[in-house]
């Protein structure tokens, strides 16, 4: 059945015997990889009426769809992927850059993937690319063949040489259309059913209750509030948030009305050794009239009272004083000193939004040029300012962490919306202070709690990566900046993080395009509406499979109970070559060296492991 589908789309079902065999093999392999347990063309689009994957579509889903489908409007009810696929198949050669040999075979476009099935005598496996990860596409035709250059969101550049001008143009158009679909519920995670994983697994690894349990063990000044249970108080917060025990839900709701997007101050991290807390929120809506809100003031007062008598607080505003003042004109603003006794405001301007995206684009451009002179490279590295942003982010996080650990002060972080640089600062500060967040599970929990559940709008921020020609609207590599900062921490404290560069690279890739549902949507509310938790797999269950571990772990990890204070001098920061130059340079000897490190570590474990056996084999007296 599936076989029939795949090639009926292509229209020219010429099927000699060997091809048939080859194709069914290919499908078997796909099924094995968990890519074909659902109809490759997507919901309700399969032209064959007997497609077993035609999913029942509930009325509620349809309603949702109309709300969430931002892409091209479906013509007749459902989304017809087949309309977008002009040619399913062509002969092509794929060039993958330095280090990887070119591949020849049959190219095939499906609803979510680009497949290259190598010729019958080829030994290599099927090659597969998620269409969602294509950032920009460029086509050129010459004579009777064409070339398509695909620039991917993970910064890879691929070249396809295709036989036939018509086929080239058709495939290019199909990829273009399919890779830019914005609908969430027809995206691949909703069809991805990998072998060995169960739906629903790992989605409940890190609920807010889990974090609260830890906080409650350390202090009883805080409670878990379900004021946002139906997402009506704050659409970008999760169902449950941790707030001062002394403040009731009504006050929270009123404080929320005083904060942009309803993001009232909530607990982000409780630092047990000093008894201080890290909070985050959005800007207060003081406006030009300098409005105040008694409940909001009460909330922050309660925070200080809960910490210890006479405790001080710092409000770290991630905008410049000037920008914060200007925000008043548009209804925003910042906390007035008189209204919040005990709190002192600090301004640490951080780049965000479009300038950050442009910085990313320019850095990637510079990294793609292998011929440039030393001087040109250094001046482009300087000009893109990326490392300056890394320094800003790290030093602001250190400032917040230092305030808690050294000065015993409570810290509230916010910028404007409180969904970008705010999260960058709070999550990095935790990594610096909290040894638990430096473990494999602790870090995953941190990402889940401080980024995904805290409402970083991944769908908007990661819609395009550095290659897209589209005018950036909401795109910004804030999460990538976070990963880069973590990488810098890992470089300065190579033994203190349980995870390695591999995990950071994986998170980068999956944030931009993923078969898993973890990074879908912009908030918990949207994820709930799309039933992401029940209908897609969690990235964490994918990553935590034993076979993935060697790629993701740091073999040298030893628990370090202390805070890790990085150096933020420019001499100590380095370009993250593993990410930005990952595809432009041939495989490095350093990878072999890394293998050797693993070998030494496993040797050590082995020899140590064999010790008890020696003592055990000792004759008992």
């Amino acid at each position, binding site marked *: 059945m599936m076989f029939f589908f795949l090639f009926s789309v292509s229209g020219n079902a010429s099927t000699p015997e060997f091809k048939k065999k080859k194709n069914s093999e290919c499908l078997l392999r796909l099924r094995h990889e968990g890519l074909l347990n659902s109809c490759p063309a997507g919901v309700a689009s399969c032209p064959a009426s007997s497609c077993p994957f035609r999913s029942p579509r509930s009325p509620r889903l349809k309603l949702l769809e109309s709300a969430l489908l931002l892409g091209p409007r479906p013509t007749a009810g459902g989304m017809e992927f087949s309309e977008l696929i002009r040619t399913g198949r062509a002969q092509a050669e794929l060039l993958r850059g330095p280090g990887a040999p070119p591949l020849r075979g049959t190219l095939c476009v499906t609803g979510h993937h680009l497949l290259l099935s190598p010729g019958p005598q080829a030994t290599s496996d099927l090659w597969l690319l998620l269409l969602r990860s294509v950032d920009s596409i460029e086509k050129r035709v010459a004579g009777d063949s064409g070339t398509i250059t695909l620039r991917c969101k993970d910064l890879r550049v691929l070249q396809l040489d295709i036989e036939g001008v018509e086929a080239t143009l058709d495939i290019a158009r199909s990829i273009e259309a399919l890779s830019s679909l914005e609908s969430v519920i027809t995206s691949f995670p909703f069809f991805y059913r990998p072998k060995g994983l169960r739906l629903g697994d790992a989605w409940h690894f890190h609920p807010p209750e889990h974090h609260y349990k830890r906080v409650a063990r350390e202090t009883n000044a805080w409670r878990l509030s379900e004021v946002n249970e139906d997402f009506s108080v704050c659409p970008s917060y999760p169902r449950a948030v941790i707030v001062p025990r002394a403040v009731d839900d009504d006050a929270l709701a009123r404080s929320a009305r005083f904060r942009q997007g309803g993001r009232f101050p909530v607990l982000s991290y409780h630092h047990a050794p000093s008894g201080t807390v890290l909070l985050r929120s959005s800007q207060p809506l003081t406006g030009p009239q300098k409005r105040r809100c008694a409940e909001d003031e009460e909330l922050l007062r309660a925070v200080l009272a809960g910490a210890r008598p006479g405790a001080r607080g710092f409000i770290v505003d991630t905008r410049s004083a000037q920008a914060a003042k200007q925000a008043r004109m548009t209804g925003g603003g910042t906390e007035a000193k008189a209204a919040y006794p005990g709190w002192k405001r600090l301004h640490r301007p951080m780049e965000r939004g479009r300038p950050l995206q442009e910085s990313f684009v320019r850095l990637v451009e510079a990294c793609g040029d292998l011929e440039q002179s030393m001087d040109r490279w*250094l001046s482009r590295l300087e000009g893109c300012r990326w490392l300056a942003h890394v320094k800003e982010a790290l030093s602001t996080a250190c400032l917040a962490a230092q305030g808690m650990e050294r000065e015993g002060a409570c810290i509230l972080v916010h910028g404007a919306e409180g969904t970008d640089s705010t999260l960058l600062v709070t999550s990095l500060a935790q990594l610096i202070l909290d040894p638990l967040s430096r473990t494999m599970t602790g870090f995953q929990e941190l990402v889940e709690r401080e980024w995904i559940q805290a409402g970083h709008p991944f769908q908007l921020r990661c819609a395009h990566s550095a290659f897209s020609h589209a005018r950036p609207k909401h795109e910004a590599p804030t999460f990538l900046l976070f990963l880069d900062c973590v990488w810098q921490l890992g470089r300065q404290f190579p033994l203190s993080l349980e995870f390695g560069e591999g995990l950071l690279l994986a998170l980068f890739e999956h944030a931009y395009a993923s078969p898993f549902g973890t990074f879908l949507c912009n908030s918990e509310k949207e994820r709930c509406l799309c039933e992401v938790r029940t209908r897609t797999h969690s990235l964490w269950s994918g990553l935590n499979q034993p076979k993935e571990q060697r790629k993701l772990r740091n073999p040298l990890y030893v628990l370090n109970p202390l805070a890790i204070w990085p150096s933020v001098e420019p001499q100590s920061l380095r370009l993250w070559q593993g990410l930005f130059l990952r595809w432009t340079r041939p495989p490095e000897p350093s990878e072999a060296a890394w293998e050797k490190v693993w070998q030494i570590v496993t040797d050590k474990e082995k020899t140590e492991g064999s010790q008890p056996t020696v003592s055990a084999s000792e*004759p008992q007296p």
Partner: protein
Amino acid sequence: MEHIRTTKVEQVKLLDRFSTSNKALTGTLYLTATHLLFIDSHQKETWILHHHIASVEKLALTTSGCPLVIQCKNFRIVHFIVPRERDCHDIYNSLLQLSKQAKYEDLYAFSYNPKQNDSERLRGWQLIDLAEEYKRMGVPNSNWQLSDANREYKICETYPRELYVPRIASKPIIVGSSKFRSKGRFPVLSYYHREKEAAVCRCSQPLSGFSARCLEDEHLLQAISKANPVNRYMYVMDTRPKHRMQSWWATQKDIGRIIVRISSKIWNDEKIRESHEQKRLNAMANRAAGKGYENEDNYSNIRFQFVGIENIHVMRSSLQKLLEVNGTKGLSVNDFYSGLESSGWLRHIKAVMDAAIFLTKAIMIENASVLVHCSDGWDRTSQVCSLGSLLLDSFYRTIRGFMVLIEKDWISFGHKFSERCGHLDSDPKEVSPVFTQFLECVWHLTEQFPQAFEFNEAFLLQIHEHIYSCQFGNFLGNCQKEREELKLKEKTYSLWPFLLDDQKKYLNPLYSPKSQAVAVLEPNTVSFNFKFWRNMYHQFDRTLHPRQSVFSIIMNMNEQNKQLENDIKDLESKIKQHKNKQTDGVLTKELLHSVRPESPTLKTSLCFKEQTLLPVNDALRTIEGSNPADNRY
């Protein structure tokens, strides 16, 4: 001694130049005949060798005392505050005297005594035997022989006594050629590639002028090309850069017919070719002044290649600029990179590396012999020959091999260490970080090929330290003749045995000598592979360093693995024995005792006391340094 007026000052403050915390360390400053010593209240000692001091500066008096800033050649910068101005003045004057010695005999090496007897000292000096090294390369052989022409330093004072030349080059030819070459440095063998039967030779520039030619020199070059049975063509690499002689070039159109023939196998890029054309201009200028490069018409079978490495003065000011930039307190990321760019330092490093790669390719791909020269043939030529050999031959990537390489291409061929490092109070215009650049190139290679080198970064830093320390005799003087006159082998000690004794500290735990992939190194010189070497230029600014060292931890693990494996073997054999004897009680006791491995802490020997390079001990000590107060957030 007569320079020291105050030997001890109390209540001196030591400031960290990057930390923002105003809590300076308070302690006592001692001035000895050889060192400046600061002991803080935690009994931590900071030793500064007088010879390492590059400059001392007394700043304007402040309320807390008189600031004294000392800059060292090993890139340490210390900032003391001495409470009384008189003391400060005394120390300032003493240091000015002590850091600049007029005579070799006053250098530390002549008084340094590591408690070795004479035979041990002699054995130390014999550790590196260059005759042995040439034998290892495969010379003398049917094409190359040892020449005794310079046995008495009669032909060339700055060359060693033993020189290898083509067998068919007779003594008159050698003598004739040496008269044609600047400072008598005629073409001799530097490295012989046994497999390809190709040679790397070195010399200085010819004193050709416009019409002058020297038949002997032409014969000698012929002899070198004939000594290569596989490829009769040879390359002459002029390592000097272009010059501002455009107008002169324009009027001398006829010279344009001397077109550099560049092998298409190596350089087929039109752009590269053009830039090399430009670089030839400097050589043209030299030629007008009676010095210059070989006229191609007079030499057959020769291809000329120009690579642009700048001279010692450009390099000196480039490093100065670099140090100025990265010494700035509160440096922003952008200022750092624009400073790095305008200093040109990494561009120079890349130029040296590119030249060495050209040499390697000429030998490996074309099987051609290469003759390298610059002006005098002791700076850029040493850089290119030694780096090229390092790429070609994995022996030089071992600890001992690297020592041999330095002895061969730098010490014996007369790199002017004393002048370039400013050992004595002499012409500051002769000082230049040529050797430092070589070490940096090697460091870049260790970064690109982490498994190809037996030694680690600490080894390079330690050698750099001793280039300037004047503690050992190896780097004193400017050539072998001078060293013999100073009787260094009788009066001073060699550095190498001390490094070998401490070998453990310098081992690279990832070294895999058998890996075929690293037989000949082919580094990638894309711009982004060149990075600022923080551990060199900020080796004493601990707050800028990674707080935990991967190398030392892997090293320790490796050590422990070995120890544990030995323990296991030991125990197993003991179990066998004891099983035979059936005496169990003793065994259990022994087991408990020996199973716990001692973590291998590496002792620092006395002579390296002043070093605090890359703390070998792991987490605790390094994490201690991780303090928010050390940083500006």
